[in-house]
C-alpha cells in the first residue's frame, strides 16, 4: 500500500525497454477509489498482476467489478472524482504512478494504448477519421504523410471496414456503432503499442465480426510481440484468446492463473457460478442454468469479510469475519481468494454442511441434500 511518487525524468519513453528483464506490465497493490455521494467507492481495491511480452491476460467479471477502472488506472485516465491511486504500475520496469499528464501522453500510442469500452469516448466527433488515425503516427512513427495514410487505410481494412479509402474522409457520426468500435480499435493499434488494453473490444459486434477482430489482435501479437489485457465479460472470448485469466469481483481479483488451469480446476465459488450460469450449445434445450442468486455489490466501505459471501453456497462463519487473500493453490496451479474452494476437501465439506443445514452462514438458502 505504499505510495511511490518518484517523478524522476528518464530516457525518452518510446525508447528501448528500461529494464528488459522486467515484465512488460507489473501492477502491485493497486487501489483506485472514487469519491461519490454514496461514499468512497473502492472500484479497484488491492490488485496485483503481471503480464509478459506477447502474452494476453483476460480480465473477466461482471458489470461494476472494476475491470475498466483497472484498465484506465494503467493508462492514468481516471477523471476528477478519483482519489490518487495507491500502489505501483510499472511498464518495462518503469514506474508510471506519479508521472505527469504530459509524461503519460508521451507513452500513449507506442508504449501503451487503450481500446475504450464506449467507442464514442475515444473518437473526436468533429475530426475526420484520417486525422484521428494518423495524428499519433506523425509523432511516433518515422513515416511520410503518404505512408501514414496508407497505414490508416490498411488498419481500417484489417478491422473489417469496407471501402476504407472512402471512410477516411468521414466523421464518427457517419458510422454505425459497430463501425465506430472498429475504428477505435484501429486508432489504438496505429502506433504499434507494446501493451494494448482492450476494454470489451468486441461487445457491440456480431460474432462473425468479433471473430475477425480477435484473429487480427492475435496476429499482431504473434508478429510484433504486443502484450494485451483483454477486458471482457464473455468467458468464451476469454477462454479462447488468453494465456492467463484474472477473475474480478467487487474490485478485487478472486482467482487468477493460466487460463487452462482456471477453467479445468476452477476453485473459486464465484468463478464456478459464472461458468455454471452460461448457456452452452452442447446442453439440451430448456436446461436450467445454475444462476448464482442476487447481484454483485457496489463496494462502499467494505467490511472485513469475503465480498462474495452473501451469494456463495460454500459460505461459513469464517467467511463473514475474515477477508480471504489471493493465495496460491498448488493443486490447481492458480491463485484463489477463498477459504473453502471448490474441488478441495475443505470446500466439499463446507458445501455439505450448508446443504445439510439448508442454508449458508450468510443465510442464503441452499438446496437440502437428501440424507
Amino acid at each position, binding site marked *: 500500500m505504499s505510495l511511490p511518487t518518484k517523478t524522476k525524468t528518464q530516457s525518452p519513453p518510446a525508447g528501448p525497454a528500461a529494464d528488459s528483464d522486467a515484465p512488460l506490465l507489473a501492477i502491485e497493490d493497486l487501489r483506485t477509489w472514487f469519491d461519490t455521494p454514496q461514499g468512497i467507492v473502492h472500484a479497484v481495491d488491492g490488485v496485483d498482476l503481471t503480464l509478459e511480452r506477447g502474452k494476453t491476460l483476460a480480465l473477466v467479471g461482471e458489470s461494476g467489478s472494476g475491470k475498466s477502472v483497472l484498465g484506465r488506472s494503467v493508462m492514468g485516465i481516471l477523471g476528477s472524482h478519483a482519489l490518487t491511486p495507491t500502489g505501483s504500475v510499472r511498464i518495462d520496469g518503469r514506474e508510471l504512478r506519479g508521472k505527469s499528464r504530459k509524461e503519460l501522453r508521451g507513452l500513449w500510442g507506442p508504449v501503451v494504448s487503450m481500446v475504450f469500452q464506449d467507442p464514442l469516448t475515444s473518437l473526436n466527433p468533429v475530426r475526420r477519421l484520417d486525422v484521428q488515425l494518423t495524428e499519433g503516427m506523425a509523432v511516433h512513427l518515422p513515416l511520410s504523410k503518404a505512408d501514414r495514410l496508407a497505414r490508416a487505410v490498411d488498419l481500417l481494412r484489417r478491422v473489417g471496414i469496407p471501402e476504407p479509402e472512402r471512410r477516411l474522409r468521414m466523421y464518427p457520426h457517419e458510422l454505425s456503432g459497430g463501425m465506430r468500435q472498429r475504428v477505435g480499435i484501429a486508432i489504438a493499434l496505429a502506433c504499434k503499442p507494446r501493451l494494448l488494453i482492450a476494454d470489451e473490444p468486441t461487445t457491440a459486434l456480431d*460474432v462473425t465480426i468479433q471473430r475477425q477482430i480477435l484473429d487480427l489482435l492475435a496476429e499482431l501479437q504473434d508478429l510484433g510481440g504486443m502484450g494485451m489485457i483483454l477486458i471482457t465479460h464473455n468467458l468464451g472470448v476469454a477462454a*479462447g484468446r488468453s494465456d492467463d485469466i484474472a477473475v474480478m469481483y467487487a474490485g478485487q481479483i478472486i482467482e487468477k492463473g493460466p487460463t487452462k488451469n482456471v477453467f479445468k480446476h476452477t476453485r473459486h465459488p464465484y468463478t464456478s457460478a459464472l461458468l455454471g450460469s452460461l448457456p452452452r450449445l452442447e446442453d439440451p434445450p*430448456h436446461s436450467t442454468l445454475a444462476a448464482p442468486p442476487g447481484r454483485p455489490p457496489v463496494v462502499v466501505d467494505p467490511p472485513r469479510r469475503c465480498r462474495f459471501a452473501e451469494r456463495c453456497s460454500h459460505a461459513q462463519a469464517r467467511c463473514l469475519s475474515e477477508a480471504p487473500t489471493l493465495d496460491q493453490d498448488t493443486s490447481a496451479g492458480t491463485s484463489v481468494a477463498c477459504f473453502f474452494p471448490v474441488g478441495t476437501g475443505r470446500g466439499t465439506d463446507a458445501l455439505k454442511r450448508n446443504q445439510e443445514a439448508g442454508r449458508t452462514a450468510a443465510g442464503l438458502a441452499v438446496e437440502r441434500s437428501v440424507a
Partner: protein
Amino acid sequence: MAGSGNAHLREADDALLRVENLVVTYPTDAGVVHGVSDVSIDVRRGETLGLVGESGCGKSTLGRAMTMLREPTSGRVLFDGKDLTGLSREGLRRLRPRLQVIFQDPASSLNPRRTVRKIIAEGLEIWGRKPTPEVVDEMISAVGLDPAVVGERRPGQMSGGQCQRVAIARALMLKPDLILCDEPVSSLDVSIQAQILNLLERLRVDYGLTLIFIAHDLAVVKNISDRIAVMYLGKLCEVAPSGDLHRYPAHPYTRALIDAVPVADPEVEIVPMEIRGDLPSPINPPSGCRFRTRCPLATDLCAEREPEIREVRPGHYAACHYATTQPLPADAPTAEPVTV
C-alpha cells in the same frame, strides 16, 4: 432474393400464430429498406420460437410484424386462425393483452415516474380491471422480487435485471397467450441473464405461455427455444428443432455463425471461420440468394435463382441450393439431392 417458400410451415390448425409471406419495407431517403422479405413462420401454442441472426437482419422487424406492433407491408398474420392484418385499430387494441412484448432495455420501457406496483397494475387498469394489491404483490413475487423491498421503488432505483423482471410481471398481468421477447437478456450480466432465462422458462410452464424469443447469442436462443429460425438480411436461412440446429447445421451461414461462437473452454480449438465482411445493404440486397456475397459455397446459380426453403431432415429446413446435413451420424437421414 434468398430463401422463400413455405415448406417449413406446419398444419395451420396447430399454430397459435402463423405468418405467411410477410414483407416489411421501410421507405427512407436513401431508398426502400427491405426489412423482412417474404417470410413465413408459425408458432404452436406452448412453444418457444427463437429468432437469431446478425444485427440488422430483421429479427425485431419480423417480431414486431408478427405481433402487429407494425403493420406489415404485405402478407398475412393469423392469430388463432384469424387474420389480423385486416383488423381495425379498435380490433387490434382489444387483442393487445393477448400479445405482449418485452424489450431489451427494460429501464426505458418502464415509466420512470411510477412505482413498481403502479407499473405492474397499469396494464390491467387501462381495461378498467383494477387488480387488488394482493394480486399485484403476488405477481411481483412470481418474478422473483420481494414486494416489500421493491414495491414502492421507481425504475431508476433498480438494476437492469430487476427492471426486466418488472417488465415481465407487467406483461404477465394481462394473461397473454404469447409474449414477444426482443433481446430481453442481451444487456444483462451472465449471472442475471441466467436468472431471467430460468424465470422465463418457469413462467412459460406455469402460465402456459407461447414465446417468440429474439437474441443474437445462439447459445441463449438454444437454451430457451423449441424451434429456431436463423435469419439473414430479411430472409430465413434455416428452421430447425432447437436440439438439432447446432449439431447438423444445413445452411453455410448457420455453420459460420456456430463456428464464430466463442466457446468457454480453452481446450476447444478455434476453427477457421469461412465468411468475412458485414451484411450487405438492405436497400440493394444481392440477387438470387442474399447470402451469396459472403458464402464460401456460392456459384452462378446462387446469383441467378433464389433457393426455396426445403426439408433437409425430418422437421429441419434450409434455404440453400447446396444445403447439407454434413457431418451426419451414420444412421441419420440424408438430404434430398439438389434439383435445379
